[in-house]
């Protein structure tokens, strides 16, 4: 953002959109290619996140022990948190069937989000629209599929012709419910994760970057370079806040996926 804003004429325009905004929604030039597959930075990070998640699970549960080590305790508490609290707590007893999906989702998003705060990567995987969108499409397919396979066509009729509403209002409530179920749910699920991570990434870049810019130009501006100090301190404050956001957004995505699946498993509630 800072590098991009150097390109615009500050004398004429107060605000200019950064030139690399398109990068958030489209994919950019590849680092390397194998045949028709382009490997961009994002794709490399997807594979890295996958290997981290699979490796962590493999090393934690390769040889299950009665008394697990420190790493085993952390992974076990994560798994039991997703299975007991999120899956069974939201969906009910049959929630353990969806626990593997929710766990994979949670760990992948968590690792992808924490890339934002990892030194030398500093790039949240989920700040490219394609990735949260794809993840939310998975959730969408699962909850629509579960709804139809569990309840048949009465799932759809229960949404667009709700019995608990007075007859005169049923078409209106049904329309709103239909749009909210099949259009707004997947979009907001993806946009929530995406926008939170983009906002955090921008804040960190702006604050830490402008702090660094002031410090680096100490030769030109002399003692005024100290202006960078509050920026840098505020940036570090946001850094801690972003850690909370990264964990919380992974949790919220998983929780909402579970809630959406729950409404398909028990559509009356």
């Amino acid at each position, binding site marked *: 953002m800072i590098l991009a804003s150097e390109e615009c004429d500050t004398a004429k325009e107060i605000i200019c*959109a950064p030139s690399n905004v398109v990068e958030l929604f489209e994919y950019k030039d590849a680092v390397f290619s194998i045949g028709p597959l382009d490997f961009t930075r994002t794709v490399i990070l997807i594979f890295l996140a996958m290997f981290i998640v699979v490796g962590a699970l493999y090393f934690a549960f390769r040889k299950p022990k009665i008394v697990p080590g420190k790493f085993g305790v952390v992974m076990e508490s994560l798994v039991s948190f997703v299975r007991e609290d999120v899956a069974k707590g939201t969906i009910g007893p049959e929630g353990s069937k969806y626990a593997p999906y929710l766990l994979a989702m949670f760990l992948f998003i968590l690792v992808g989000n924490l890339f934002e705060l990892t030194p030398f990567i500093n790039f949240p995987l989920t700040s490219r629209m394609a990735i949260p969108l794809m993840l939310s499409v998975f959730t969408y397919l699962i909850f629509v599929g579960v709804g139809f396979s569990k309840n048949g066509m009465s799932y759809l009729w229960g949404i667009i012709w709700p019995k608990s509403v007075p007859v005169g209002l049923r078409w209106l409530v049904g329309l709103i419910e239909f749009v909210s179920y099949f259009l707004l749910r997947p979009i907001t699920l993806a946009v929530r994760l995406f*926008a939170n991570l983009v906002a955090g990434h921008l804040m960190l870049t702006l604050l830490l970057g402008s702090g660094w810019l002031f410090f680096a130009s100490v030769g030109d501006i002399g003692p005024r370079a100290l202006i960078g100090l509050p920026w840098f301190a505020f940036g570090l404050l946001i850094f801690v806040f972003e850690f909370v956001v990264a964990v919380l957004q992974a949790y*919220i995505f998983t929780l909402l996926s579970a809630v959406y699946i729950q409404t398909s498993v028990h559509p009356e509630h």
Partner: protein
Amino acid sequence: MEEIKGAIALIGYGLAAIGPGIGIGIVVGNAIQAMARQPEAATVARTTMFLGIAFTEALALIGFVLFFIA
């Protein structure tokens, strides 16, 4: 008077943040009240609070995204 410059999308984002700001305040306030009245139900209240925040926050975040793509 100087001509006002800048992106009108910024104002749109500001407007989009008003409602969710009030809404999250209401959600968290009532969740704290519920937790204070019934500490044994704090876990349920907290989960529901995060859900409520997530739903309310979505509007502000959509405004944020529209600021970029507008």
